[in-house]
Every structure is written in structure tokens, then in C-alpha cells.
């Protein structure tokens, strides 16, 4: 589904990703952990095609396509979804209009028939309920005045509506109370159908208690420093990243 080979990426001329490799197969859940500033969000942005984040070398294949060749919206329509760490507020555009446009674009791409207004509304209500957002939120501007937790739940709601094939969740758990955390995790789990894949970026084991990963990777200094199973996350929880320095020295 996704294969990243030796990916280097810079922002404003500063190299952030320094030769990153990652393979994700259909249905898999990969957790990515790592210290602040390691480049986790950068990875998400580069994969989504954000302009300022420039892939300088390496190869990324997504569903047999050269991902780096595609525009931001083409990548999204190809099935890539990034749940943002800090979703923006867009007061001039209503959530409803936004969702309608994006769902319609996704369905068109997949060759599906468009939803009728009634079908769309029904699906949007159901998705809202699933992430515990009041339906009235649909009428508000995109993320306008939403609390931190509401924004995160809104991201998951969009994911449910768009039915992507690869979901990258960038700290969808941070800033959530324990109930909201469960809501987000349940939302994600409801979308696990054996084909859809997930990259879950998080700092905390507690999310992985709810979303069982198949693999855990530690991203440090722009590279995957270590990969393992769910037990790796528990190690990090217990002892932090101090060991990384030894690891890097050992590598040097």
C-alpha cells in the first residue's frame, strides 16, 4: 500500500527527514513515536504534499502510484488521509459545505454515485454521533471556535465520512480527556476492516491500549531509529528516549 524508501525532506532549506524507510501493507496499523521535533509531523505533511515541505530525494509509492508526483488534493482523492495535529479554523466555510465538497470529490474519484442530500445528511449525522460531536457543529464554520478536543474529533469524523485507504493520525490523542480518547480510538477501530491501513503518531502508550498496533517505530532525528512490536511502545513509556543517544553512538 505504502512504501517509503530513503526519504529526505527539508523545510526552508533545513533537512528534517534524513533517509526514512517505511512499509505499510493493507490492513496494518503502524504506530510512530519519537521525541519532540524528530520529524513525525513533517513525515505526515510530506506524505500529504504540503507545499513548504519539500521531498529532496527518495521514493514514495502509494497504491502503485508515485505519491510525490501528485498534488495535495490528488493524494487525498487517491485515498490518503492526514488527521492534523493542529487543524486550522476556517470561519468562512461551513463544516457542512466542506464535508459535502470533500465527500463528493472522493466519491467521484472512486466512480461511486453521488449521495443525495438526504443520504449525505444521514451519513454526516451518524458520523457526528459516532465521535460524540453535536450535529449543530455541521452548521458552524470549519473548526470555528471548536475546543482542542472537538477539533480532533472533527478530524476523525471527516475520516469516517471520506473512507480513505491510508489514515495518518498525527497526535489525534493529545489534549483529549479519557472519554474523548476512547471516542477517537473507537472511531478509528470502527474503520479497521482488514484493508484500510493506519499510521498512528503518538507520544503515549494509552492510545495504543485502545488501538492495537501491529508495529511500533521510533522516529528520531529524521529516521526510523528502531522498529518492533507493541512491546516497544511499552519500553518507551517506561524509559523514554535516553537510550536513543547510545543507539546513535553505536550507529556512528
Amino acid at each position: 500500500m505504502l512504501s517509503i524508501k530513503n526519504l529526505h525532506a527539508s523545510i526552508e532549506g533545513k533537512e528534517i527527514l534524513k533517509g526514512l524507510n517505511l512499509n505499510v501493507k493493507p490492513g496494518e496499523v503502524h504506530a510512530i513515536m519519537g521525541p519532540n521535533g524528530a520529524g513525525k509531523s513533517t513525515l505526515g505533511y510530506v506524505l500529504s504534499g504540503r507545499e513548504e515541505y519539500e521531498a529532496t530525494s527518495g521514493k514514495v509509492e502509494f497504491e502503485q502510484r508515485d505519491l510525490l508526483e501528485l498534488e495535495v488534493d490528488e493524494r487525498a482523492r487517491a485515498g490518503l488521509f492526514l488527521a492534523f495535529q493542529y487543524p486550522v479554523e476556517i470561519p468562512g466555510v461551513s463544516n457542512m459545505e466542506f464535508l459535502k465538497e470533500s465527500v463528493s470529490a472522493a466519491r467521484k474519484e472512486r466512480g461511486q454515485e453521488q449521495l443525495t442530500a438526504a443520504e449525505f445528511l444521514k451519513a454526516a449525522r451518524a458520523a457526528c454521533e459516532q465521535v460524540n460531536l453535536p450535529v449543530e457543529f455541521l452548521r458552524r464554520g470549519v473548526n470555528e471556535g471548536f475546543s482542542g478536543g472537538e477539533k480532533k474529533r472533527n478530524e476523525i469524523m471527516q475520516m469516517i465520512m471520506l473512507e480513505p485507504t491510508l489514515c495518518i493520525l498525527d497526535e489525534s490523542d493529545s489534549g483529549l480527556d479519557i472519554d474523548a480518547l476512547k471516542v477517537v480510538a473507537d472511531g478509528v477501530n470502527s474503520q479497521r476492516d482488514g484493508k484500510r491501513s493506519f499510521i498512528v503518531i503518538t507520544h503515549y502508550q494509552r492510545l495504543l491500549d485502545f488501538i492495537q498496533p501491529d508495529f511500533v517505530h521510533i522516529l528520531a532525528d529524521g529516521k526510523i531509529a528502531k522498529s518492533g512490536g507493541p512491546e516497544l511502545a511499552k519500553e518507551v513509556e517506561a524509559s523514554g528516549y535516553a537510550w536513543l543517544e547510545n543507539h546513535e553512538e553505536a550507529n556512528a
Partner: protein
Amino acid sequence: MSQWLANVIDRASSVNDWLSPVRQEALTRLKSTSWPTRRTEEWRYTSLHALANLTLNEATNSKALAEAPVVSNLNSIDIVFVDGVPATDLTALNLPAGLTIHSLANASEAIQQQASKVFNQVKPDAHLFGLVNDALALQGVFINVAAGVQLEQPIRVVNLVSAGIESHNRVLVNLGANAQATIIEHGAGQGNSMNTAFAEYVIGTEAKLEHYRFALHGEEAIHIGGCHFKMGESSRLNSTIVGYGSQISRIDTDVVHAAEHALAKMNCIYLLGPKEHFDLHSLIEHVVPNGTTEQNARGIVGDKARAVFSGRILIHRDAQKTLAELHNRNLLMSRGAQISTTPALEIYADDVQCAHGATIAEIAEEDLYYLQARGISRKQALIMLNFGFIQELVSQMPNKALAAWLEPLLRERFATMESE
């Protein structure tokens, strides 16, 4: 003086019709007016260079094909001019009672007398091209709506221009007391034409005028004109101007609150493409107390286009209790696009409520990215993020048929505008 203006004076000197006395006055003024340069305040941001040495032909007779643009459900009374020449037989129009429409060119003495009460009674005489129009507009219409008559059908004056032709025309409107009318001035045409079009409106006591002016000329055109309104007591004006911008497109819209309790709502929309230029000058004068003005000019400027907005609301010493608002909002779509905006309030009365301001926004790349990251194309995302504030003014147009016709045109135009 420019070669073009010298030609104007030359041609105007030989005009001989019932308006000749007024034309002569205009000529005298023209002869002593110097050609505007960048140092002329009124023309500071709009260069007349392209006009200075232009020589175009005048149309001699009307074109056979003169179709007014089709607007579904508008059901208007159409008067069409092609290159300044009438293409509509005014005498054949089937008009409702209380409405008369006459050609200025062959007005009877009675009509001449009525029209003289409007001609140059509203338009300020400082405008160089207004004077040119005074001197050379041999064609035009005088529309009179009798007191108390409420017209249901809109009246549309269509000015079509074509390449290589210069034309001048005039619209005079008298709205009697308690009368009600909708008047649409529609200008359009492709190619390197030159046209001046000035309209004067006398709005009677408690009369209501719904006004539209569309300057939808192509990018090579030179179009200079104005619409000028004199407000009677407790009268209402709702005016919407829509400009596409051209090589030179300049509209002056002026309102005089000549009697108390009048209300003027003035909206203006401009959407400018490649190298188009649009200049809106507006002067709204409150001479008497208790008047209200609400003006909103909004535009989107792309590529290397330039918009100029100069809006002044002048509140004289006696104009107490005036309510006035003047706002100009702009979106710049590219680095090469320019906007020069000067909204100004000049207040000499002490008991008034006024607000004014101008904003210039640029494309919010972060918002655009968010929408695109959800699969929405850049083009569509731009429309969603930026068309709203234009759409708002379109939806304020009281005539729904016109709004329904205009909206897709503007959307389409916006969608093709360059954003980088």
C-alpha cells in the same frame, strides 16, 4: 491636451442640435482643462496613456444584429444601443401607463423641456469625460416615470460596443414622487472600443429606485462613465455596480442627498483578470440632515490586474444625524495584483454616526492546504474560501433574476483567475 481630446473638441464644434447651448458650455470648459496625468488627483492610479493618441471610427448606422443579453425571468423593457447608435425603435415599445421613454436625438420640444431638468442637473461638471459626453453624446434616452407609478418591469438600457469604434451615450431618468422603478445599465463588448456612458437620475420625493450598472467589457476596451443620483426627500436608492475591468474601465458614482431622510445603499463588485484595470470613484454628499448611506465595494484582483477605489462621503455642516458607512474589501490573488484604496469620510457636522474602512486580504495558503488535503481541488477550494464575500453582495441584489444570472458568470470568471 492630448490628440484624442483635440479631436473630440474638433468634432463637437460642428454639432448642432437642441442641446447645443449646453454642449458649448462643456466645450468651453474642455478647452481649458488639461489632460490628466499621474499628478492629477482624480487620475492618480489610472493612466490615460492608452487613450491619448487613440483614433477610432464613429459608427454610422446601427448593426442589424443587436441582441440584448438573455437573462431568464428578467422580463425587462430593453433599449439597445450598438456603438452608440439606437438599435431599438423606441416608438414601437409597448410601455405601461406612466412610463415614457424618448430618444434624446429627436426629442420633441415638450420632451426637450422635461429632459433639460435632468441633463447636467445631477452630474458634477468637474469630470473631464463627463464633459466629453456632454459635448458628444448625440444619442441617448430620457426615461420618465410619472408620479405615483410603480413599474413592475425593469427597464434595461444595453450599450454594446465593438472593436475599433468610439461611442458616447447618455441616460437621463426622472422618477416622479412616489414612483418606483428598476433600471439596468448594461455595458458590454469585446475589442478595442472607446465608450463614454453617463447616466443621471433625479429621484423624487418618496420614490424608490433600484439601479444596476454592469460594465462587462472585454480586456481591450476603454470604458469611462458614471451614474449620478439626486435624492429627493425620503427617497430610496439601491444601486449595484459590477465591473470586470478593461484596458481602462472607470466609473464614477455620485450621490447627492438633496433632501432629508433619503437612504442610499450602494454596492459594488469587481473581479479583475490578467491585466485588467478597474477604477471606481465615488462621492456621496450629505447636504441636509437625516440622510443614510451604506456603501460596500468588494473586489477580487488576480494576476497583474489593478483595482482603484476612491470613496468619499462628504457630510456638510448642516447634515446632522447622518448615518454613513463606507467599506471596501479586497482579495489579492497574486503578487502582481494591485489595489489602491482610499475610503474617506469628511465630516463637518457634529452629530453623525459614521464608519469606514478598507481591508486587503491575501490567499490563506494554510486554509487552502486544509481543504485540498480533504480532496477538494485548488480551484474549488479557492472559490469556497474567497467567493463568499462577493456572493454576499450578489445575494443582496433585490432582483433575483439578475442575481441568478450574475452569480454563475462571476463564479466562472473567478474560477479562471490566476492565483499565482
